[in-house]
Structure formats: C-alpha cells, structure tokens
C-alpha cells in the first residue's frame, strides 16, 4: 500500500527518473543483489561441502516406526562413544526396512516381526521384544474377552458391548492400516483375513490408536503393550485386557508368557560392513538395556 501512495503518478516519477543519479542507483541495486546471491550460494556450498570430510563413517538404518525411536536412542549413545561415526535412522515400516536393506539404500533394516520364509536372504538380530495387547476405554466394565469374542467383535458379528456383558453401547472397532506388521501379527494370531474385519476406525501408528480409544468409551483396539501400560499408569483413559488368561503386561512379555508377542529385529543382507556388525553387537549388548526399558520394550 505504501508504495502506491508514495509515488502518486507518472509526473513525479518522470522528474526523479530523468536525473543522472537514476542509472547509478540502478547499478548499485543490481550489484547489491548480485553480492547477496553470491553470498547465499557460497553459504550453501560451504554447508554442503563440509560433509565431504566430516563424518568419515556413516550408517543408515530404515524401517519399522516401532523400532525407530529405540534405534535412534541406541545410535545416539553409540555416536557418543565412537566420535566420527554418524548413524542416520529413518522411519517407515518393516516392509520398507526389508526393501531398503535389499536395495542397498540402508545398511541395516528395522523390522518389528520375525522374518518370514520368503526372506531367507536376510539375517535378523533381535534387539528387543514387544507384546501386542487389546485395549478398551477405562470406563468399560468388561473385564476380559475370550479369543472367540474378540474375533466376533472384529468380524462385526458382535456390535454392542451388551452382548459380552458390558454396558449398552455400540462397539467401535479400531484396526491398523494395511502393511503394518502389528496388523499381520494380529491377523495371524486370530486366523483372520483383513477383508473379514469390519472396522469403524483405521489407524496408523500406536499413539493414534491410544488416543482414539481413550477418546471413545465404546472403542476396542490393539497396540504395543509397553506404550499402553505406560499411558495407563499416566492416567490416560484406557485399560489393557488380559488375553487367553494372561494379563497384558511388559513383565509377562519378558517371562515369555504372553501369547501375542513379537521380536524387534535389525536385519542385514549377506555380508555386512564391520561398522554395521559393531553397531548390531552394541545394540544387543548389556549397555543399552536401560534404553530398551525406557522405550517400554523388553530385552530379548
């Protein structure tokens, strides 16, 4: 707005532009811009070139979003102990971890399940264990569900909590999105196909499931036990249900008693680099036990 009012019309413009100073100003402005551009370009180049001699050794990890926060913490500790090493952790999914490891995009893949028969070209190193627990809203009066009831609820045959001894309230079935290893494990355990499930909400990561269940008194979902236990203790409005008679707790996963448990793995293809081997050994060693429990997992 300013500029319009400052120069009311061509008349005044003419007076100013006809002066000799005009072309000088023109040149100065252009030179100024050139200098700014050169300075900026120089700054970019400087920043880019630094990496050429910094960080002599680099390790890239990609894959499971469940493993990523844990691997990131392990990587930070490893970097502290080994100056000059940089470990980049990128999140995605287990299948991405396997794909990237195979294509050589990543040195190590992160996979939140055991390897399958078709994945014989990979070697897995288990760094932690995790359980998957059924969660409901805290106000839900149902104390336990049998496996059959869970299957019936997820297949849409039971649609109200009244039918399993709860309050008269419609059930909101929370399911995971296609491709998640949590979903694969859940389907495998209950002998279901994903197309048989009649879900009302489909979620991506753990925490979205926890927030969805905590915000809906009729919801039922399944998430990583460690996270759910932690949230329960913090007073989040949810409750873990026991499964097949075993209460869903990190302690039970550690004892190997919980039926729906999974491995958290680092995977490599063929002969891996010495650095990758060292990092995997570090990730399986005693010195990262506190990091594993801090992320609510169980040491293998």
């Amino acid at each position: 707005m300013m500029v319009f009012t400052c120069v009311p019309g061509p008349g005044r413009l003419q007076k100013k532009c006809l002066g000799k100073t005009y072309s000088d100003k023109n040149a100065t402005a252009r030179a100024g811009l050139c200098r700014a551009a050169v300075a900026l370009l120089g700054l970019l180049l400087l920043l880019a070139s630094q990496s050429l001699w910094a960080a002599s050794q680099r390790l890239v990890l990609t894959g499971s979003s469940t493993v990523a926060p844990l691997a990131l913490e392990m990587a930070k500790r490893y970097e502290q102990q080994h100056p000059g090493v940089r470990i980049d952790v990128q999140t995605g999914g287990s299948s991405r971890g396997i794909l990237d490891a195979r294509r050589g995009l990543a040195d190590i893949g992160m996979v939140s399940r055991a390897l399958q028969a078709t994945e014989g070209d990979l070697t897995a190193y288990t760094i932690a264990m995790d359980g998957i627990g059924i969660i409901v809203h805290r106000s839900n009066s149902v104390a336990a569900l049998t496996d059959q009831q869970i299957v019936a609820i997820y297949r849409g045959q039971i649609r109200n909590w009244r039918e399993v001894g709860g309050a008269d309230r419609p059930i909101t079935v929370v399911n995971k999105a296609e491709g998640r290893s949590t979903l694969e494990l859940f389907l495998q355990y209950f002998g279901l196909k994903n197309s048989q499930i009649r879900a009302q909400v489909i979620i991506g990561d753990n925490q979205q499931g926890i927030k969805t269940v905590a915000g809906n008194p009729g919801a039922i979902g399944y998430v990583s036990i460690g996270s759910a236990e932690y949230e329960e203790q913090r007073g989040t409005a949810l409750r873990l249900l026991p499964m097949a008679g075993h209460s869903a707790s990190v302690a039970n996963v550690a004892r190997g008693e919980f039926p729906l448990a999974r491995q958290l793995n680092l995977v490599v293809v063929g002969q891996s680099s010495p650095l990758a081997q060292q990092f995997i050994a570090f990730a399986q060693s005693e010195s990262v036990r506190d990091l594993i429990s801090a992320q609510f997992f169980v040491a293998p």
Partner: protein
Amino acid sequence: MAKRGLEDASTAAGTIAERLFTLLVWGAAALVVAMLLWVLGDVLVMGLSHLSWEFIVAAPEDAGRRGGIGPILVSTLLILLVALAAAVPLGLAVAVWLAEFTRRGGRFANSIRLTLDVLAGVPSIVYGLFGNAFFSLYLGLGFSLLAGGLTLACMILPVFIRTCEAGLSMVNNDWRRGALALGMSRTSAIWHILLPAAAPAIVAGLILGIGRATAETAALIFTSGYVDRMPGSLLDSGRALAVHIYDLSMNVSGGDGAAYASALILIGLIVVLNTLAQWLAERWLSRRILNS
C-alpha cells in the same frame, strides 16, 4: 396517508432484515474467533507447561519426551532457507514473464498458467513421493536437508508465481506507459517500478509459501527424514518441526506435552517469519522505488 404507511412498513422490514444481516455477519466473525481460540487455547494449555528456554535450545532426549528441539529448529530453518533460496528468484522470474512478456490469451502462457494451477493443487504428499524419487534417489542427495528444501521449493513455487503474477497484473497500466515514455528499458521498468509496485502481492505470496513450507509434514518424511541430531551440513538428514510433532503425537507414548510445546513454537515461528517477511519486503521494495 396510505402511501406513507406503506413506506414506513417497508423501511421497518428493511431495518429488521438489515439488523439480522448485521447480526449474521458479526455472529460469523465471532464464531471464527471462537474456533480459533479453541484450537489455540488447546495448544496453549497443553504446551505452555512444557515450554522453557531450555526446551528451545536443548537437543531431544528419550525419543523427544525429554530435552528440547534445538537441532530440529535448526533443521527446519535450513530447509526453509533452501526452499526460499530456490523458489523466490525463480518464482519472481516466471511471474514477471507471465505478467509482462506474454499476450493476454496467448496459448503457451495460458497452458503454463493452467499447469501452475494444477501444480499448486498437487497434494504435498505427492511432492514428497516425487522428491524422494527425484532428489533423494535420482540426483543422489539421499535423505537430506537439501532434498527436503528443494522438494518444498517445488511445492511452494506455483502458488508464489501465481500470487506475484496477479500482483503484477494489478499494477496500473499508466506506470508502464510512463516508463516506456521515459525511454526506460523493460528490464529496468520491471526492476524499478513494477516489482516494487507489486510488493504487497509478493509479500502475500512469500507468506503463503513460508507458511506452507514451515508447516509441511507429508513431503518431508520421505525427503529430509527423521534424524533429530544437529545437522552438520545440508547433505545431512534433519527432522523438521512438523515431522517431530507428528512423530511425538502419533508414535511416542507420553510425547504429547513436548508435541504441544513444539506446536506452540512452530506457530510462533511462522508468525515471526511472516512479520519479518512483511517488514523486510516493505522496507526493501518501498525504499527502492522512493530512492530511484
């Protein structure tokens, strides 16, 4: 007498409708303010308790639950810097061409305009996929601030160009005729008269771009990545603030406090950057036209 009565009735009806309309307009404005306060209030209440100077400068610990967001802020700003450094000069150039060097209704220019409008609508997630394949893999930049910034540059470019072009074509034609009559070359007319005159639109475009780039999540997960340490160079991977918020709220148990505090910082950052852009552009561009 009868006629006068009729007139009275119509004005009375007019006033009632008039009042109702006024009420509606004020009501709508109040509703918008209320919704904004609800959203902002939620973020403020949840985030303020977690906020401190320490939080702004420290490095994240324990997957972001403790510690701060220092390195993430640096990454965010570097990504933004790369995006603006690439998009602003290029965007201004194309906008000038569209507004000043093409005929109205010209085929080539119109098809470029349509292309830009489509590009402006291409969802950020698609830019993310493209950036991952083109910058990260094809050009070999990997997961890096450079790849993320360039992806964002592609993303904000179309809207920036169209806003600047609109601003340029709003400039009164007398100015162009005046410059021509004075024997100024088109190049200097553009530089000294038209661009400064279009400054408000350029600022608007800049603000739109900064807002979109700073707040972007989807496009950055696949390009600049997830690493939350202090970047050593533009070729390092670095986590943007919006990606951090998404990860904390969707993937990290007990990350909500830090997520809301980060959201508060992000909103504050956008406000500060916008104000700065406005101030800089007004100063720089208006001073140039005054001096010349």
